[in-house]
């Protein structure tokens, strides 16, 4: 280090020198950040109470799908479940008032399943009071007891970002399925009414980045299946040990599952409709694409140096026979695995069982500099129309 005879300069230089000698502890940031990166932004969706009456669950039960499609389920809701409508526990309201369209419908249809799982330490109790599960997506009601003065999710900013200081604020959640670590890719937390309640959402669709080098999901990630034991390890601020909630989860929906395996080809690109699953709380679409469009310009390809460079930015919209489109449940993103396009997207459920569904694939322009998506272009030759009558 440079020495001077000026005592003032020596003090500040010595200070700077010492600052740089500060010991930095093991941070393990990479793992924590990858996990965080795979979550969608924490959502703060304060929803308005529904004004219209929901269609009666019984009206959409018992309807068979037809036309040679492999139907496993036969309708959205069993009559047994529909009859339980009047027995929805009050706590289910966190889903009804603050959940997405699927959860609100789920509560109305009696799909909420109460549980009694709790863990207490440091003057705070964290409970899971119930869940809704359709074999694909699970939403868990979380409730905190004990005075902290901070919201269970901390301070949620308008852009969905969170400030997680204080005490008793959820920092992160680790999921275990049947006692094994389960890489969910991302999870969504929604804030409940009181600041002491929240909804945790995750699902078993393909996480973004699967198939890329070192992706945690590549280590093996089974479907959640009909039933499993769920363990949540919830780290909260102000505590040095996680709150552990363990309870059995069982699917209680009757889903409409279509496995058409139909293939359409156009311009060097072939698209297979693998599976379409309609449940009372979600719509899940699985497709595989192969090849590249010969006549599409470079503006529709993901630019060099970006993940999936050279591939088309591919998306899908789903409509019913009246041209009502279901929304993306979260931010749907395709994956490229061994050169093939893998679409495993989740949407909100149809409000009522459609007579037919039209799947409209599109490609999107990508700005070469910023990588941002632009105008969408439907590829009508690759559309699938699926009759459900």
């Amino acid at each position: 280090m440079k020495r001077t005879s000026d005592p003032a300069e020596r003090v500040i230089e010595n200070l700077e020198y010492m600052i740089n000698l500060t010991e930095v502890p093991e941070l393990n940031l990479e793992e924590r950040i990858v996990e965080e990166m795979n979550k969608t932004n924490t959502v703060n969706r304060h929803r308005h109470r529904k004004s219209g009456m929901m269609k009666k669950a019984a009206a959409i039960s018992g309807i068979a799908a037809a036309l040679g499609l492999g139907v496993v389920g036969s309708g959205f809701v069993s009559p047994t479940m529909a009859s339980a409508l009047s027995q929805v526990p009050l706590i289910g309201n966190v889903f009804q008032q603050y959940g997405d369209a699927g959860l609100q419908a789920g509560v109305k249809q009696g799909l909420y399943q109460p549980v009694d799982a709790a863990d207490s330490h440091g003057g705070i109790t964290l409970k899971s009071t119930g869940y809704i599960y359709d074999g694909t997506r699970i939403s868990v009601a979380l409730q905190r007891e004990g005075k902290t003065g901070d919201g269970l999710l901390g301070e949620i900013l308008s852009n969905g970002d969170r400030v997680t200081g204080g005490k008793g604020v959820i920092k992160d959640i680790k999921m275990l399925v049947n006692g094994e670590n389960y890489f969910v890719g991302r999870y969504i937390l929604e804030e409940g009414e009181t600041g002491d309640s929240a909804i945790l959402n995750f699902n078993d669709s393909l996480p973004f980045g699967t198939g890329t080098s070192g992706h945690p999901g590549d280590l093996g990630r089974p479907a959640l299946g009909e039933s499993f034991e769920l363990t949540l390890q919830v780290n909260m601020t102000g505590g040095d040990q996680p709150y552990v909630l363990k309870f059995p989860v069982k699917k209680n929906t009757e889903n409409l599952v279509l496995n058409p395996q139909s293939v359409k080809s156009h311009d060097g690109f072939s698209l297979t409709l693998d599976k379409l699953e309609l449940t009372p709380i979600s719509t899940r679409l699985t497709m595989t694409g192969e090849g590249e469009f010969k006549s599409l310009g470079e503006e529709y390809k993901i630019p060099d140096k970006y993940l999936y460079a050279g591939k088309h930015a591919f998306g899908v919209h789903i409509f019913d026979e009246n041209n009502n489109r279901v929304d993306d449940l979260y931010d749907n993103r395709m994956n490229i695995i061994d050169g093939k396009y893998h679409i495993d997207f989740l949407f909100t459920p149809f409000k009522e069982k459609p007579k037919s569904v039209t799947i409209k694939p599109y490609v999107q322009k990508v700005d070469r500099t910023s990588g941002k998506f632009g105008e969408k272009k439907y590829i009508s030759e690759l559309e699938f129309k699926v009759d459900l009558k």
Partner: protein
Amino acid sequence: MDKRTTVDANREERRALIDEWARQAQAGSQEAFIKITRHFERQLYIYCYYLIKDPEETKDALQDIFIRAYRNIGEYRGASFSAWLYRIAYTHSMNVLKKKKREQRLADRYRDEARLYTHTERDSAVMELLEPLTPDERNLVLLKAVEQYSFEEIGQIMDCTAVGLRKKYERIRKKLVQYERNKGGAKIETNIGSSRAGY
């Protein structure tokens, strides 16, 4: 060749590389963002540690800062990613500090000694010297120390002119000398001596 010149040359390369990673991360590359994280984590830890003064809270803050940067990377406009990141870090650290002070006021009422943190002798000496500085002055010293930023670069982070920062830096020098004289002054030299023994 002067060592400083070599650092500057490397810094230009480094800056170009970081900006390229930032562009890739904006387009959705998680790998690029991880490279950014690896690159900045040590310096950012030291920077935040002397603002927040609590190692555990600094670790949490660091994670929050990178997540915030990742989620808002679309807002980065390409001037200097490093300056953009340090602005986030400073704002977040100040928020943590404010919250901590509110809690401390409450804790003080109950004399919660358990919440006092222990630091190494060297860290304590640094904190003692930073103590008489305002948050802005502390920010300037830390940015200069941790990243060896020029006044022009620090100006981008602190929204000040380089000329104003030079003057501020001079005032900090004088303030620290005065502080050392008032305290009796030999402590910092002692610490330097002991910390160098291992090199």
